[in-house]
């Protein structure tokens, strides 16, 4: 069975876990927006402190963050290599034709810290609540019903598609298919596998749609789930909003 592990730490007990999801999303997204607005290096330490505090409050394990940073980290690593070699005029160090430039290094620092803080706050936001609650909250915040329904259906049927894929791969292996290198025959076989999966998925989608219509989808009103709000949830969202405003205000002030 496909294991997505999207909710592996969603049921811990921390202030961030207890923060009602709508207010958490609103507050932390405001903070993420503010972080993306920052251009002045003097604000980076404050960003790091806020991010670290949020992550410690969430009680999420460090391996969770490390695991999620892996793939985007490669992309950032590429930038970290290229930018110091290509951006700016002030040469810090030169070895033959290779020059390490100050402006490039500073750009890397800004990009890496902003990226790390934004991703970490995003993980805190969505890693401390079940995926389904997050989708419901987004719908309550104004995400169109059609998009939220599509997200939920995609999540639900990703497991079925994963199971189908594994079964088909097992069946192929049992009939001697051993992909060793990307030759024409292998690519054709994999292409057929993907094509079959797409066709089966499409046919299933048609059946699911019929099942939904038969139970009234598109004919009636859907009740929103009632999410319980406490005063602390609102206060925390206001605090996050004020913090976001402070970062943006500071950026304007330092840049005047």
């Amino acid at each position: 069975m496909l294991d997505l592990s999207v909710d592996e730490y969603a049921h811990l007990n921390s202030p961030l876990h207890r923060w009602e999801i709508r207010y958490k999303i609103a507050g932390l997204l405001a903070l993420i927006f503010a972080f993306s607005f920052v251009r002045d290096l003097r604000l980076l330490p404050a960003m790091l402190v806020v991010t670290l505090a949020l992550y410690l409050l969430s009680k999420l394990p460090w391996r969770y963050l490390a695991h999620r940073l892996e793939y985007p980290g490669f992309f950032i690593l590429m930038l970290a290599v290229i930018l110091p070699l290509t951006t700016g005029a002030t040469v810090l160090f030169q070895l033959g034709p290779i020059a390490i430039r100050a402006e490039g290094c500073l750009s890397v620092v800004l990009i890496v810290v902003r990226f790390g803080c934004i991703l970490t706050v995003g993980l805190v936001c969505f890693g401390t609540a079940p995926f389904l609650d997050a989708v419901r909250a987004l719908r309550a915040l104004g995400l169109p019903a059609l998009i939220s329904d599509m997200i939920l259906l995609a999540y639900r049927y990703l497991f079925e598609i994963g199971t189908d894929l594994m079964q088909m791969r097992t069946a192929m292996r049992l009939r001697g298919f051993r992909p060793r290198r990307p030759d024409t025959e292998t690519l054709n076989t994999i292409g057929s596998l993907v094509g079959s999966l797409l066709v089966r998925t499409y046919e299933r989608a048609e059946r699911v749609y019929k099942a939904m219509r038969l139970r009234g989808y598109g004919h009636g009103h859907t009740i929103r789930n009632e999410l319980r709000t406490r005063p602390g949830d609102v206060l925390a969202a206001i605090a996050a909003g004020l913090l976001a405003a402070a970062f943006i205000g500071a950026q304007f002030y330092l840049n005047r």
Partner: protein
Amino acid sequence: MNDNQTALTLADLSFAYPSQHAILRQLDLTIAPGERVGLIGPNGTGKTTLFLLICGVLKPTAGEIFLFGQPMRYGAFRPEIGLVFQNPDDQLFSPSVRDDVAFGPQNLGLSKAEVDTRVMESLRTTGTLDLAERPPHHLSGGEKRMVAIAGVLAMRPRFVIYDEPSSNLDIRARRRLIRFLQAATETLLIASHDLEFILEVCDRVLLLDGGRIVADGAPRDILGDPALMQAHGLERPHSLVPHEIPHHR
């Protein structure tokens, strides 16, 4: 019997997919409220197509369909009829069992309290209350089947169609389903290749082949007729094979 006394009336019903030969030809059928009708026939004979027509998902090429005296319009939503699909994964599309069973009542515009009541009632009726918070992909085949039934029952239908309900069920789940259907009060229309299942649950059997209803009668009469069954690619269920005829290895 007039339309007001019938649960389902098919009048000269025909259907063909575009540019294909006719699947159903001039079907006439009447089912009374409370009847438990089994539908048998070889694969590809149009059983599922017939169900989708009855539910208004497909549009007939000719003829009419009446459900509890009211004409069934193509695309209409009629909560008094429910369809349990052959593959429960096709109708368990919500992230949790509770959400899935609540789906139909929510679309009926009911209050949250009424939706919750119906969900609990349906889960209890189908014996799936302890599965309420589970995601569907974590359920066994039998559990999925019962949850799919709960999702349909939550709309309180008066007529329920079951498409191959015992397929892929183990013996225990199959027996649980038989007991459940024997106790059901709705009008039932059940398609199945499991002829012993039909014998235990139904009080009337229709044999569909070549797009027509070729036999209609008591289960033991239809299923126990060797010539009839063989002529339509079927066999008598084992319990109806007289044991003076040697048929064991």
